[in-house]
């Protein structure tokens, strides 16, 4: 957010406001060396609500944000932010987007009060009461240098700045990483209950399922640079089911198991985590010789783990 970089030159046309999708990518691809980080990604995030993006390390989340914000070029495809091509965002477009990254990078040598004054000048829609409410949850003094703040205090300061600018879209890259429980709670409460976020679409990436369960309206799962799921978190949970069966011997060839995400053999019983399988899956297990079959729904953490674990790197 507080990038002290020259912004893109002012364009005469004003940004297309009221775009239906706050984020839109079509066939977005990015490769570093021989490695494809974003692989023809098609993603459309509608305006409103809290969108959580999860993915294994290296799934392309931060790269996606960097391309969307115009800090990084794509290798192929297009990316649009608030309806505008990310490569030609104007200063006005940038004013409408708040960005908080995991480093909470702010100039270390500046005083809190100086950074705040600078931001206030930069953003015409600056909302001082919102800034004060959010920063009030953290023990931050205007006379302190940014470099002297703790990680949690910097996170709070960063969020206060981003919300006070009155953004239409707030992008957060693992914002609560490394925060203590109190700071984390204050951070989430500012996000959910601040008046500044009422009209704001939030796009947020995290590895913390508990947080996502409390926060997210929409769950986006990225895997190796591709979209694996986009739905409300509970709809995603409903797609994954856990079956336990006494299949004899080694059980059916994993390649033949429909919707298989994960299989584990414990005490001679086979545990299957499967995707999009109805009661027909029990018939499949019976056909494989199972006599006792039970199944149960799973929680978000287990469901996301199962899907990301399917192709996750593991020692052979």
């Amino acid at each position, binding site marked *: 957010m507080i990038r002290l970089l020259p912004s893109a030159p002012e364009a005469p046309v004003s940004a297309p406001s009221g775009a239906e999708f706050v984020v839109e990518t079509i066939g977005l691809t990015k490769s570093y060396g021989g490695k494809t980080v974003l692989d023809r990604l098609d993603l459309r995030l509608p305006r409103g609500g809290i969108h959580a993006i999860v993915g294994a390390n290296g799934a392309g989340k931060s790269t996606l944000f960097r391309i969307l914000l115009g800090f990084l070029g794509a290798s192929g495809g297009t990316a649009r932010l608030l309806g505008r091509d990310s490569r030609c965002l104007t200063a006005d477009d940038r004013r409408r987007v708040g960005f908080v990254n995991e480093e909470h990078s702010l100039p270390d040598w500046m005083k809190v009060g100086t950074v705040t004054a600078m931001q206030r000048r930069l953003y015409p829609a600056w909302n001082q009461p919102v800034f004060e409410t959010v920063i009030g949850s953290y023990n931050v003094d205007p006379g302190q240098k940014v470099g002297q703040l703790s990680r949690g205090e910097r996170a709070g300061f960063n969020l206060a700045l981003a919300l006070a600018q009155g953004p239409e879209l707030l992008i957060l890259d693992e914002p609560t990483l490394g925060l203590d429980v109190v700071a984390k709670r204050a951070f989430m*409460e500012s996000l*959910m209950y601040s008046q500044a976020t009422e009209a704001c679409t939030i796009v947020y990436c995290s590895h913390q399922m508990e947080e996502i369960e409390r926060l*997210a309206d929409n769950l986006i799962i990225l895997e190796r640079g591709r979209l694996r799921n986009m739905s409300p978190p*509970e709809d995603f949970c409903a797609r994954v089911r856990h079956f336990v069966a006494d299949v004899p011997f080694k059980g059916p060839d994993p390649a033949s198991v429909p919707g298989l995400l994960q299989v584990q053999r414990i005490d001679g019983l086979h545990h299957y985590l499967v995707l999009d399988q109805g009661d027909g899956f029990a018939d499949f297990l019976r056909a494989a010789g199972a006599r006792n079959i039970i199944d149960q729904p799973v929680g*978000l953490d287990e469901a996301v783990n199962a899907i990301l674990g399917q192709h996750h790197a593991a020692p052979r």
Partner: protein
Amino acid sequence: MRVQPLLIQIATGDSRSISKQIVDSIRMKIATGELMPGRQIPSVRGLAQQLRINPNTVAKAYSELTGEGWLESRQGLGLFVAVPRQRLSDEERERRLEEAMSRFINDVIALGYALPEASDRLEAEIEALMPRKRA
């Protein structure tokens, strides 16, 4: 009109969604008479803040409860516990009773109580809840 305090426990990591957990516990509180008809329940935002969850999740639970007739909204005033009526079809009631019984029996059979003792206890517990429901 004062808002009735509402204490609910939710757990993340549960296979029931948070919204479903809210629906279940409010239904239980109405059925047992802890929440009386006509009382006002917390606002969407208020309960969201209390539970530290997204307000949309509370709104979803409330709309399910309103749809099933447990709650009613009064224009501009908020949400209230509705006057009870039988909300489920006969088959659905029967199915739920069946389900609850089998869960209960699974737990109790393992404890090895003699039948008269177990059924007396059950009767006493149900009786203790019933009169309040009628009040």
